[in-house]
């Protein structure tokens, strides 16, 4: 009987761990994490219902909603009006809204003359104040 001879002295390379595959894996993992890192700032969203200026339905609701008007102030900056009060920043708006009854929800009536950022601020302030039913009303 004749056995194949094993290489003991000259060529143990066949039994060595291949470094090429290892390097490939590490580089691809690196590439993945680098790309995933740049994509990390994930988008969020502000959900709201929509309603026309004159109302989508003729149904009379028992609970009156709060109304936040986002419009351009005299100084050329966006301002948030609730009744007679007018504020310029999101935190002040949220503070005012926090003490108001929330059952009827809130209408955010946004003028076309402000920036989208101001409209988003108003919706966010409503959410921060604890309103669940937020309705966006486009005005002009």
């Amino acid at each position, binding site marked *: 009987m004749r056995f194949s001879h094993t290489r003991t002295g000259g060529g143990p390379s066949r039994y060595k761990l291949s470094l090429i595959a290892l390097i490939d894996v590490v580089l691809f993992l690196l590439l993945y994490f680098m790309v995933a890192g740049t994509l990390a*700032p*994930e988008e969020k969203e*502000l*959900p709201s219902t929509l309603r026309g200026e004159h109302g989508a339905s003729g149904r009379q609701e028992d609970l009156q909603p709060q109304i936040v008007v986002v419009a351009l102030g005299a100084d050329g900056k966006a301002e948030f009006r609730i009744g007679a009060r007018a504020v310029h920043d999101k935190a002040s708006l949220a503070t005012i809204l926090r003490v108001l009854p929330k059952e009827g929800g809130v209408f955010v009536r946004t003028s076309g003359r402000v920036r989208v950022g101001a409209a*988003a601020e108003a919706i966010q302030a409503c959410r921060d104040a604890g309103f669940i039913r937020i309705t966006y009303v486009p005005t002009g």
Partner: protein
Amino acid sequence: MRFRKAEEMKAAEFDLTPMIDVVLLLIIFFMLSSQFARVNAKQVNLPSEPGESISEEAAPHEVVVDIDAKGVISVQDNAIADTDLESAFRSVSAEASDFVVRADRDCAAERLNLVATALIRLHVRSWKLAVAGDSAAPAPAGGTP
């Protein structure tokens, strides 16, 4: 009894390296394509509000509306004229459509209102305004566009 020679065994050897490469490339492709599906091609400077996380239970059919800083409105990545908005929404939306509006924070709200009005006319009851989340740079004070 005759055993194979070392040379014969070497010829039958299977190199795993290209297979590992292909498998990893496929994994990376699928992971990235699932991310890009949401990130979208259009680069829009979203309002920097914390908002809320996108729900895992995605709507069966999501319609993405982009409004860039110049006010150009794109529906599913196709620029649409103002007069064609309603017909564009009607053609891409299904019954259970979820409308996500990605509007630039410096864009005039007039453009956003235009989209909102078109959706209201189509009896769409809700939408989602995309925001950048907490990590975004602070937005300038919202004033005249």
